[in-house]
């Protein structure tokens, strides 16, 4: 790991108290950052600092949005995920991969890893962007968030023998039902958003925006959050009231976790107020007003922003100190060029044993490849023997080519119609008069046009495929004499 070039003049400017300040700023600017004491202990490789640093690295590297779920992941799992994430980003020090995952040692290595990440990119700023408070109504245009977000794992369905097709039909019906509910509630949300934007024109202090967002309107309308929960009143009424705050402010893809958290805060309070008529449970429940929660969150965010600024000012002192930390480490073993892909959880063993294991694995790999080759040849011979060999592979090749061509055509078609690709990330929804949009702004009409043309392309492909399926079915049905084919009614 190269030593970072530090401006010595900057270091000379720093006084004696500058280092603790710098580290304190760093820890304030990171989410749940460990105390400066942890950093100091880590320099001396003290074991008690290890678990805090594993958790911090996990927070920084984890792709999941912050939430209660993160806290429940075991330390070993966090450590393993950190190791594989660092490895995939190209972290050069092997010592980290060999650390035990129970948090018993290695705090200095973890500190080095943290500083490596800090040197590579603006980590505190990125973490801040992840957890920022969305005051406007936002929507994402690109598909990235939908693809990257990890939903809850689907319940594992045991396929015990043949599944009744009616159950599958029932599931399909349920799916369609939920889909329609989703679409109509999204439509409702858009209609209400539009109304709010329309009715609050001219209310916003920022001239650029011109109207209030849902959050802002709701805070003005009802800063105290309205209903106090007393024991018993079940809260899931279908009233008009909760609409303003209740639904997520992003009609696009993926809920913003901030709003989930905001609505969840009362749920974390004692007493489950989804259970009606439970006097014992809900007695202590006093709802935190959403306005106070929002203010608190905004204050928290301001403090983090200030910490980030302080950190940037005092950074050079930190890097000087990190140089000393690097100095206290033992010199790194020469990077083994013969191990391009090593598994992070290779158990600790001496060099000689490691080479033995490597050799064994290599011979095993060769044996397996031979076995695979033999099997493949045998299968192909068998397939050819069925009389479908060359035709089969030719047909398969033809399929592959047609599919690739179709995909290529689709993508070309899309690229032609749309202009420059819209930026990633969420965009704030702002209602404006015609022609008042700035250059950087995305116009809804254009986006809609793009999406519609993509939809038309996909529908055409769908219809074509459905037609092919129908022809195939008719052919199969016609092949059996005496069979009357009655297609199912309706859609």
């Amino acid at each position, binding site marked *: 790991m190269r030593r970072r070039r530090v401006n010595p003049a900057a270091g000379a400017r720093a006084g004696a108290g500058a280092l603790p300040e710098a580290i304190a700023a760093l820890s304030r600017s990171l989410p749940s950052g460990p105390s400066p004491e942890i950093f100091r202990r880590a320099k001396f490789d003290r074991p008690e600092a290890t678990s805090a640093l594993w958790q911090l690295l996990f927070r920084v590297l984890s792709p999941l949005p912050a939430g209660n779920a993160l806290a429940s992941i075991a330390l070993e799992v966090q450590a393993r995920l950190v190791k594989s994430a660092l490895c995939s980003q190209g972290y050069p020090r092997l010592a980290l991969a060999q650390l035990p995952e129970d948090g018993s040692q290695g705090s200095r290595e973890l500190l080095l890893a943290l500083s490596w990440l800090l040197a590579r990119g603006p980590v505190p700023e990125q973490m801040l962007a992840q957890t920022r408070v969305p005051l406007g109504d936002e929507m994402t245009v690109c598909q990235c968030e939908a693809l990257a977000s990890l939903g809850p794992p689907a319940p594992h369905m045991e396929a015990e023998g043949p599944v009744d097709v009616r159950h599958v039909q029932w599931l399909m019906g349920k799916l369609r039902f939920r889909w329609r509910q989703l*679409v109509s509630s999204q439509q409702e949300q858009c209609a209400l958003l539009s109304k709010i934007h329309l009715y609050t024109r001219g209310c916003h202090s920022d001239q650029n925006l011109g109207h209030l967002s849902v959050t802002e309107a709701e805070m003005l309308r009802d800063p105290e959050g309205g209903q106090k929960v007393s024991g018993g009143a079940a809260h899931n009424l279908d009233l008009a009231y909760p609409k303003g705050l209740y639904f997520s402010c992003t009609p696009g893809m993926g809920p913003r976790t901030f709003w989930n958290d905001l609505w969840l805060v009362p749920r974390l309070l004692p007493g489950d107020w989804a259970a009606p008529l439970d006097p014992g449970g809900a007695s202590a429940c006093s709802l935190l007003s959403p306005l106070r929660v929002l203010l608190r969150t905004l204050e928290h965010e301001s403090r983090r922003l200030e910490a980030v600024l302080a950190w940037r000012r005092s950074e050079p002192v930190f890097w000087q100190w990190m140089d000393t930390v690097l100095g206290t480490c033992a010199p790194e073993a020469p990077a083994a060029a013969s191990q391009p892909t090593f598994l992070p959880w290779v158990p600790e063993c001496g060099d000689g044993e490691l080479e033995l294991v490597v050799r064994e694995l290599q011979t095993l790999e060769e044996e397996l490849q031979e076995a695979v080759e033999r099997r493949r040849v045998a299968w192909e011979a068998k397939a050819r023997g069925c009389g479908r060999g060359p035709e089969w592979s030719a047909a398969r090749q033809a399929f592959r080519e047609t599919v690739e061509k179709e995909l290529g055509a689709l993508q070309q078609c899309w690229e032609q119609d749309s202009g420059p690709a819209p930026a990633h990330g969420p965009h704030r929804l702002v209602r404006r008069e015609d022609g008042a949009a700035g250059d950087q702004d995305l116009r809804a009409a254009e986006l809609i046009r793009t999406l519609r043309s993509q939809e038309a392309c996909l529908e055409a492909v769908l219809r074509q495929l459905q037609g092919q399926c129908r022809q195939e079915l008719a052919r199969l049905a016609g092949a059996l004499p005496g069979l009357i084919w009655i297609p199912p009614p309706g859609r």
Partner: protein
Amino acid sequence: MSIVTVQLGQCGNQIGFEVFDALLSDSHSSQGLCCKRENEAYQASCKERFFSEEENGVPIARAVLVDMEPKVINQTLSKAAQSGRWKYGQHACFCQKQGSGNNWAYGYSVHGPRHEESIMNLIRKEVEKCDSLSGFFIIMSMAGGTGSGIGAFVTQNLQDQYSNSLKMNQIIWPYGTGEVIVQNYNSILTLSHLYRSSDALLVHENDAVHKICAKLMNIKQISFSDINQVLAHQLGSVFQPTYSAESSFHYRRNPLGIDWHVRPPLSGPPSLGKMSLNKDLHFNTSIANLVILRGKDVQSADVEGFKDPALYTSWLEPVNAFNVWKTQRAFSKYEKSAVLVSNSQFLVKPLDMIVGKAWNMFASKAYIHQYTKFGIEEEDFLDSFTSLEQVVASYCNL
């Protein structure tokens, strides 16, 4: 979450009036047996769902009235206005002077396309008044010409134009010994068309409701008004706001069979009220059951009996098929009331009977010319028979 009601034909309009009346008078009832806040929430929810607001405070029903004769619509409008508590929109109705002659083909192929634009415009205006559309509730009878034919046509149009909204059709099953000769033809044509375009069919049998009036309520001279009021009571207790696990009223949807059957409310006389399970349930397999409980002691009610796997098909767990909705707020002055909405084999026998009778008539080509005159060919009849036979078969195989 608002519901737009479409009232079609004589039957649909009369029942629609009773339903709105029952909903509003329950909403304003003073004996709610719950705290004031709860009551207010209930009222607000009911109002938003079925009525829109007007300047002078009189709620206007979210409804579109359609009939080919002016008499019933005028009666309905004036009855509502007379009550003083609510009314229909001034321009929310569409009527002609001709009638449909109890001919499904006339309603579907002639009236439907001819008046499609006007009717859909009226519906669109109602939809635009809603902040959020929960779905459509279409009230019609099966036996006549207007309700059934135009009803099927309108439902299809709604399917095309509002494909993401849910549609529930309230169908009145005619008396077995009904007066309209071709009621069976009308019925099978209606059912097969609705099966394709509707999301849920809520069925009320005239015979069953008649029995309720005679036996449970001891009415001597049963008029249609009595029957309609019982119907409205049942519907009201289904539609008024409740709490469910998912916190808002929603329609159930099932891909296989969308024939529902509403059992009479299991409520006793106002002061008592104990739920008794009718053992007949065990002989009818259900795809889905929904129990709605209102009133006192609703939290401690024991619904375990409904979770018996024997009640449901083999490929569905009771937890997926059974739902309970509850609210403390009492309905229509009943201290305790319960409603069971069931998607089960209960309807197989009546359906089979109607299909059988219609087939017998069809086999002898009776009255077919009246339908072919207006564009409904024998092929359409055959299609209807086929799909209904499929429905019967699927239900029998549950």
